[in-house]
């Protein structure tokens, strides 16, 4: 049990300190908003209304909590990575084990919540986009459970590198549509899902998989994911009697990072690190480091940091991990960067792969390549910190889906 004397300073007074982002229009400072064609406005307004009503509804909260407990398997453990900590010789490292959730990643948290919304709105069809396939699997899973039709849009390139997840989605009864346009990755899958939704707003719910897109998605997905940080806060107080010194999470769109960060934003002494994919290196043309090399623009419904050329065309991103291979980022991350609350370092493909192998060997935990980017940053950060300091790293997903990719890099076929 936590000594009250110790935990007292960490109890925040909600009257004194408030973080009220976004505003009612979905703006996080200058970022976010709802930059979509009028063709999509009606559907977004319906969603926004229902979301605001349900998020305050006691019955919805009870249903959501029950699903998180009994279907997802929450709370996820906060695991002390002892051998890794010793190997690095610095701060004490805890892993938030989102990889142990049903379907193997944090994506199921918001999928369960959005499915409840879809059901409430009387929708019979769910559409989703997916990069690594984790959000597609989560969407297909909740659709199967509710007996809803499910169509998942996936970049043709990602269909190839995430074959296992494609098959999982099919087993769950979903239709996977390979998207051949543009860079054939996550960005293009989102475009296709939006096009589908515009044509069939009456019966279709767009289960967007990250904190991107037009309002209310960035706020809605963040709130549905914020269970990660609420649990982590309680768990670290139980285990250590104090808050951590740093939080680390990978950032593609940024849903697992926002889920972990949200509960700690007002705790100024807790440093926040969102780790982007540096691909072959931020100084090459093959990366997905929007924060370090991009600039603000408008893509897929939100103003945010982007990879864009000087003529406003979106530049193709690159990362060994499909889930981080996206040229935009959740608008709240752009806001947190600009106000200096969070920092956004980047890890290369090579560093992520090294971290993947290291965690597997030292802790017997095989992380998703996305999460391995966060681990790669911890690998650098922990040795610079004191032994009595604490890092919580979000282990957002498990690595089963990436075994093909890692084996191919090793020159093997499995």
């Amino acid at each position: 049990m936590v000594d009250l004397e110790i935990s007292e300073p960490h109890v925040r007074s909600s009257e004194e300190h408030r973080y009220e982002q976004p505003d009612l229009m979905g703006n996080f400072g200058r970022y976010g908003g709802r930059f979509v064609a009028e063709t999509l406005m009606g559907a977004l307004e319906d969603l926004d209304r229902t979301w605001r009503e349900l998020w305050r509804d006691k019955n919805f909260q009870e249903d959501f909590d029950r699903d998180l407990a009994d279907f997802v398997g929450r709370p996820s453990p906060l695991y002390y990575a002892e051998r890794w900590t010793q190997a690095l010789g610095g701060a004490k490292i805890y892993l938030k084990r989102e990889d142990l959730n049903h379907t193997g990643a944090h994506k199921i948290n918001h999928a369960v919540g959005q499915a409840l919304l879809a059901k409430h709105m009387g929708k019979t069809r769910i559409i989703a986009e997916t990069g690594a396939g984790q959000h597609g699997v989560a969407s297909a899973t909740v659709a199967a459970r509710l007996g809803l039709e499910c169509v998942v849009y996936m970049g043709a390139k990602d269909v190839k590198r995430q074959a296992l997840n494609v098959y999982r989605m099919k087993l769950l009864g979903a239709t996977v549509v390979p998207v051949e346009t543009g860079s054939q990755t996550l960005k293009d899958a989102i475009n296709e899902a939006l096009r589908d939704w515009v044509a069939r707003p009456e019966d279709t719910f767009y289960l967007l998989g990250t904190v991107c897109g037009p309002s209310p998605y960035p706020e809605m997905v963040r709130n549905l994911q914020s269970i990660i940080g609420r649990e982590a806060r309680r768990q670290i107080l139980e285990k250590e009697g104090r808050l951590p010194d740093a939080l680390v999470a990978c950032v593609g769109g940024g849903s697992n990072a926002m889920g972990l960060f949200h509960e700690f934003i007002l705790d100024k002494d807790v440093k926040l690190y969102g780790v982007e994919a540096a691909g072959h290196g931020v100084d090459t043309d093959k990366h997905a480091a929007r924060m370090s090399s991009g600039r603000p623009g408008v893509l897929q419904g939100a103003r945010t940091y982007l990879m864009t050329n000087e003529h406003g065309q979106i530049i193709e991103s690159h990362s060994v991990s499909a889930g981080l291979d996206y040229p935009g980022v959740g608008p709240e991350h752009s806001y947190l960067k600009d106000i200096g609350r969070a920092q956004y370092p980047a890890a290369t493909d090579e560093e992520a792969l090294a971290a993947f192998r290291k965690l597997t060997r030292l802790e017997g935990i095989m992380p998703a390549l996305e999460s391995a980017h966060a681990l790669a940053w911890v690998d650098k950060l922990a040795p610079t910190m004191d032994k009595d300091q604490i890092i919580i790293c979000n282990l957002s997903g498990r690595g089963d889906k990436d075994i093909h990719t890692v084996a191919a890099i090793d020159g093997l076929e499995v």
Partner: protein
Amino acid sequence: MSLETNRIKTCFERLRGQQRKALIPYILAGDPPGKTVDVMHQLVGNGADMIELGFPFSDPVADGPVIAQAHERAVSHGVTLYDVFAMVSEFRARDNVTPVVLMGYLNPVEIMGYDRFVELASQAGVDGVLMVDLPPEAAGDFLVSLNDHGMDMINLITPTTSDERIAKICSIASGYLYYVSLKGVTGAAILNTAEVEERVNHIRRFASVPVCVGFGIRDGESAAAIGRTADGVIAGSVLVSELAKYGSEGQAAIDRVASKIAEMRSAMDDDRMNE
């Protein structure tokens, strides 16, 4: 250019006097490469009253496959906003009457900066701008800049737009309103003319500018049917899909675009005579 000499306003006044409806083709600038100005003149020569000129973006999310692929081709040819302004200037050298409306997505304009975009567009001879993904709520700065240069802000209204939003959109709209006749992306499905008529009449109660209709217009028959209710008829995908064949068929593709417009023009005008 001052508001008094606004080409869009003048065009609609002239058409009203002739009891004719506006025929507004949409093409994407730079697709096929090097041919846009030529195609614009041919469109006018075959009966177009105004031209909507799309400018390329890598992620045209409100467009269906036909126009989206045109965007992809133009982006791959490196067509920039500067190139688009140059096309309009070149067009203006021979045609100082036909209104030109630029239509596209916000990111290229954001990166260039609103003021610079509007200034260069105005210098080139652009009359109005339709920013697909800039909703009226967020249009403030851009609208001020446009109005300072006497240019119109064209806005979309759809089958699902609420009355509250129609009123809001109409309060900032100038030039004309673009009613999207069906749910979906550009190039989608078949029109329900009766539904469109009811909706256009409804919008007219809020609007002080002409109401034009686009999406789903593909031939003389559909153009004439829509022309009976709307102040203008907008055709895009049917033309862009022909221009897509320029690579393999050359001039024949452009000729078909010209004859498509001629077909729509004569169907719309015949319809008026028969009334």
